[in-house]
C-alpha cells in the first residue's frame, strides 16, 4: 500500500500567551480562515484576537432546558391525570405545586445535556486522531506550549511565505505537519 503525504499545515510555537495574542491578531487581520491557536488554558482575549463569533452553546442549553421542563410537566400531568390518577390526601389530580420540583429538575437535566452536546458537537469532539498529534512538540500544548496552526487548505497559505511570517510574529519554532494518506 503506497502512502503519500501532503502537508496538513504549519505548527508554530510561541513563548507565551502574550506573543500568541499578538500573532493571532496579525493573522486575523491578514485574512486567514483555516487556522487556530492552541493553549493549555483559555487565554483571555483570544476570541477577539482571532475574530471568533460567540459560541452557540447557549442555544442548545435553552432549547433542551425548556424542552426538558415541558417534558417533565407533561409526563407528570399525563401520569397523574390520564394514565393512573390516584386520589392522594384529597389533592386534585393535576397538583401543579407538587409537580414543580420534578419539572424543574428535568429542565436542568435537559439544559446540562444541551451544554455537553453543544460543546462536543460544536467542537467536533471526540476526535481521537488529528494530524497535529503527529508533531512531537505538540505534546506540550497541554503543559505549557502555545501554538498556532494554519492549515494548508487556507487560501492565504503559502508554503514559503507563511512560515517566514510566523517567525517574524515571534514564533520560536515552525514545523510543517504532514497528513498521512493511503492510496
Amino acid at each position: 500500500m503506497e502512502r503519500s503525504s501532503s502537508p496538513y499545515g504549519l505548527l508554530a510555537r510561541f513563548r507565551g500567551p502574550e506573543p500568541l495574542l499578538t500573532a493571532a491578531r496579525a493573522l486575523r487581520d491578514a485574512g486567514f480562515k483555516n487556522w487556530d491557536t492552541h493553549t493549555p488554558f483559555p487565554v483571555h482575549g483570544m476570541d477577539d484576537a482571532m475574530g471568533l463569533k460567540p459560541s452557540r452553546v447557549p442555544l442548545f442549553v435553552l432549547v433542551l432546558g425548556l424542552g426538558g421542563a415541558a417534558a417533565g410537566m407533561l409526563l407528570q400531568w399525563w401520569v397523574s391525570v390520564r394514565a393512573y390518577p390516584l386520589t392522594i390526601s384529597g389533592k386534585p389530580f393535576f397538583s401543579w405545586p407538587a409537580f414543580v420540583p420534578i419539572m424543574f429538575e428535568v429542565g436542568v437535566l435537559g439544559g446540562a445535556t444541551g451544554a455537553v452536546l453543544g460543546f462536543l458537537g460544536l467542537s467536533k469532539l471526540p476526535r481521537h486522531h488529528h494530524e497535529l498529534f503527529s508533531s512531537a512538540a505538540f505534546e506540550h500544548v497541554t503543559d505549557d506550549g502555545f501554538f498556532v496552526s494554519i492549515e494548508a487548505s487556507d487560501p492565504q497559505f503559502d508554503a514559503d511565505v507563511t512560515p517566514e511570517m510566523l517567525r517574524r510574529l515571534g514564533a520560536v519554532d515552525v514545523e510543517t505537519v504532514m497528513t498521512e494518506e493511503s492510496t
Partner: protein
Amino acid sequence: MTAAHQHPELDKDIVRKHDSPMRSYMVLAIGVAALLLGWLFGRQAPGSWLTAYLVGFVYALTLALGGLFFTLLHHACRASWAVSVRRLAEAAGATLPLFLPLFVPIALGYRRIYAWTNPQNANPAMQELLAHKAPYLNGPWFLTRSVIYLLIWAWMGWWFWRRSVGEDDTPDPAVARRLRTISAPALVVFALTINFAAIDWIMSLAPSWFSTMVGVYFFAGIAPAGFALVAVPAVILRRRGVLSGAVTDEHLHDLGKMLFAWIVFWGYIAFSQFMLIWYANIPEETKWYATRLNGTWLDVTVALAFAHFILPFFFLLSRKTKRNGVTLAAAAIWMLLAHLLDVFWLIAPSTPDGAGGPIGLALTVLGFAAIFFGAFALAARRAALVPLGDPRLQESLEFETV
C-alpha cells in the same frame, strides 16, 4: 473572550459637584403633602388609612434596607466590582433614620390594624391563643421592639454611609478595613432584626398564623429591591454623563446578574413557603393563603407571581438585556413596582379593614415613595457619587465580568 472593554476615566470633579438640592427638597415636600392628602382622604376610615400607611412605610423601609444590605454584603465579600456603585446604596441606607419619625403614626394607631391588640373581640379559642402569645404580642413590648429595630437600622445605615463618605478626601486603609470587619457581624444583626421585624409587623397581622419562613421571605423581597434601587440611578447618572466614568457595561451586567439571582431566590422562597403549607393542608396555616387565593385577591396573587418572578426571569435571562442601560433600568423599575405589589399582598389581606380605596392608597404610597427618593437624593448629594477613597475603586473601574 469578551469584547474590548473600556478603561473609563473617572472625572472626580463631576462626581463631586452637585446641582441645586432644591429639586430634592421639592420631592420631599411633595411626599409629605401626598401623605397628608392621603390622611385627609382616608380620615373617615382610620383602619384602612393606617393599613395603607403601613404598606407605604414597609415599602419605603425595605428599599432603604435593600440599600443597606447591598452595602453590607459588598463590604463583607470584599467585592471590588460593586465599589463604583456602592455609594448609591450607601445613600439609600443613610435614609434609615428617617423611618423613626415616620413610624409615629403606626405607633399611635397600631391597635386598629393588629387584631391581637383586641382580644376581647375574638372567639374563646382565639382568646386562649392570644393569651399564650401575650408575653410577646403586647403593646409596649411590640413598640419597644419596633423602635429597637429602627434604631439599629438607622445607626447601621448612617454609620456605613458616614465612614465611607469620610474617606473620600482622606483615604485611610484602616477605615476600609474597619468597614469590612464590622460588616460581618452587622449582617448577623441585620438578619435577626429583619426576621423579627417580619414576625412583628407582617406575621402578627394574622395572629393565629405562623411560618418559620416569614423572615426569609421578607429578606427575599428586600434583596432584589436593593439591587434594583442601585441599578436605576446608576443607569440614569451614566446617561447624564455624571457616572459615565464609573459605570460601565460590565457593572450593569453584574447588577443585572445579581438582580436576576435574587429574583430567582425570591421565587424559590415564595414557592417553598406556599407549597409546604398547601401540601400539609393544616387549616391554621392555610388560612393565610386561603385569603389570598380567593375572590379578587387571587388576581393579585397571580399577578404577583408573574410580575415578581416569571416575567423578569425570562426578561433578564438574556445577556443583552443585562448589558443595556435602558432594558436594565426598565427591569429594575419594574422590580421596584413588583416589590410594592409584594408588600401590599403581604399586608393588606390580613388586616381587618383592608387598605381602603385606591386613591387614598395611591396617595399614601406615592407619598412614601417621594419622601424616600427625596431623602435618597439628598443623602447622595452630600458627598461624591462614587466612594473616592475606597482602595478597590480602581479595580472596580476596570473589572470585566465573566
